[in-house]
């Protein structure tokens, strides 16, 4: 269970998050939407302790990770898998070495067992046979899939996705959406997706949180959000640059 209480964060005196509070239950799938630069990725990084808030609490299974020593945080992070916006694959390693990284560091497995697990998870993300490729040889979509394979290979309880479909064409985006749903259902993981892609939010999220003006502006089931008559929500969902155009 993830709980955020009254979270505040600013960078160089510029406030990014103010009084953000929400709760995500185990096994729930939540999409956090909002405009570019609204602080979605910053919020996501707080959930795994990659950023520390200026004030407020982040609780993982009831344990506060705020101001927790980095070495103690490592233990908490083993509950998480995170898929980064650009994949964040280690470019000096092959795909197999990237995917096996967490297994090699934290689990005592034989090389044969590691190879079996890596091949299995690459099959799940539709990347079979890419073990020996370097990240530079992969397309954007393949890199995100490889990043997802690395995040789920050790079967975490929670998977965080940072803009998983940004920069991908609609067909590849669709396949990534399907993959996230498949991973959610197959591994029964808690899923948190940060996105400004409405289709991704609708497909993957069982609940949608909208971040606007530094706080959670709206929260509800996807149908409620996408059918909302609130002008701010409407403007974002419809993708209208000028709110006045909506009146025309």
């Amino acid at each position, binding site marked *: 269970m993830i709980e955020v209480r009254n979270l505040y964060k600013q960078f160089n005196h510029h406030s990014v998050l103010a009084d953000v509070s929400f709760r995500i239950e185990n096994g729930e799938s939540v999409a956090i939407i909002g405009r570019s630069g609204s602080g979605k990725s910053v919020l996501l*990084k707080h959930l*795994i302790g*990659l950023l520390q808030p200026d004030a407020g609490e982040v609780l993982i299974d009831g344990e506060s990770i705020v101001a927790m020593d*980095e*070495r103690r945080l*490592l*233990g908490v*992070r*083993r509950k*998480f*898998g*995170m898929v*980064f*916006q*650009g994949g*964040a*694959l*280690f*470019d000096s390693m092959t795909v197999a070495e990237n995917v096996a*990284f*967490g297994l090699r*560091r*934290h689990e005592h497995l034989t090389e044969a067992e590691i190879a079996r697990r890596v091949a299995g998870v690459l099959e799940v993300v539709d990347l079979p046979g890419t073990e020996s490729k370097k990240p530079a040889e992969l397309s954007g979509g393949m890199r995100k899939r490889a*990043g997802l394979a*690395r*995040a789920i290979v050790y079967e975490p309880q929670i998977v965080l996705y940072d803009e998983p479909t940004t920069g991908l064409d609609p067909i590849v985006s669709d396949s990534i959406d399907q993959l996230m749903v498949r991973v959610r259902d197959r591994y029964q993981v808690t899923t948190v997706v940060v996105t400004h892609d409405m289709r991704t939010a609708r497909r993957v999220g069982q609940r949608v949180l909208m971040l606007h003006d530094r706080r959670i502006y709206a929260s509800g089931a996807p149908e409620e959000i996408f059918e909302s008559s609130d002008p701010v929500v409407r403007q974002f969902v419809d993708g209208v640059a000028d709110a006045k155009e909506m009146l025309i």
Partner: protein
Amino acid sequence: MLNPLANQRVRTALIELGQIAILAKEVSASVLRWRVAWRDLVYQIFFIGIKSQSVVLITGAFTGMVLGAQTYFQFHKVKMDTATLAVVGVSMCSELGPVLTALMVAGRVGAAIAAELGTMRVTEQIDALRALATHPVDYLVVPRLLAAHVALPVLTLEAIMVGILASYVVGVTVLGIEPTYLWDNMLKYTHQVDVVIGLVKAFIYGGIIALIGCYRGLTCGLGAEGVGRATTEAAVNASITILIANFFLTLVMGKLVGLL
């Protein structure tokens, strides 16, 4: 009273010094817990030690030759030609060998470490490491620091030997100095303690290069500009720190040797 700009610079410098001290403490804790990634340690020894051979050997050889020639030109005036290699030996062992080796490695390795870690930072690879429950200090800093501590003394020893030999060859073949006395005087006035001082300095400079390179990389600004600046600062900061540290180490070790 300092003007605001100078005040800000002093403040920044003190903050950075504190952060490097915290990084050094983290590294010590990691080494004591023996969380060393052996495969990476071996690769880093290869990268820092083996790949720096040519630059260090060329530096050592030409420094030895120039020092030998200059010393000869002065000593020849007072008929002390055969003392030339003794001066070269002492200088190379305790000062020029460790300092010039460290400066060359700071330019090559310190900058490369900052660029690699900086690129990892701006492409979120450091965050990915942390998300994979791996401490960046354990995985990135410790292998580089230990490798630099191992490689620098070996490289320095090579630079010293090549420098003295190159100076001997130039002295005998080009300057026409009598070889037996030249070599004998070098052995007479160059003591084991000079070599030990040089190696202790090299060990310390290895730590300075790796620690500053890692610090600059891990804290670099965003984008290509940030990585570029971190790379330059790593090389410049490490070089200046080495030169300042050399002065104090020379004083301290000179006093210690005097007490023995």
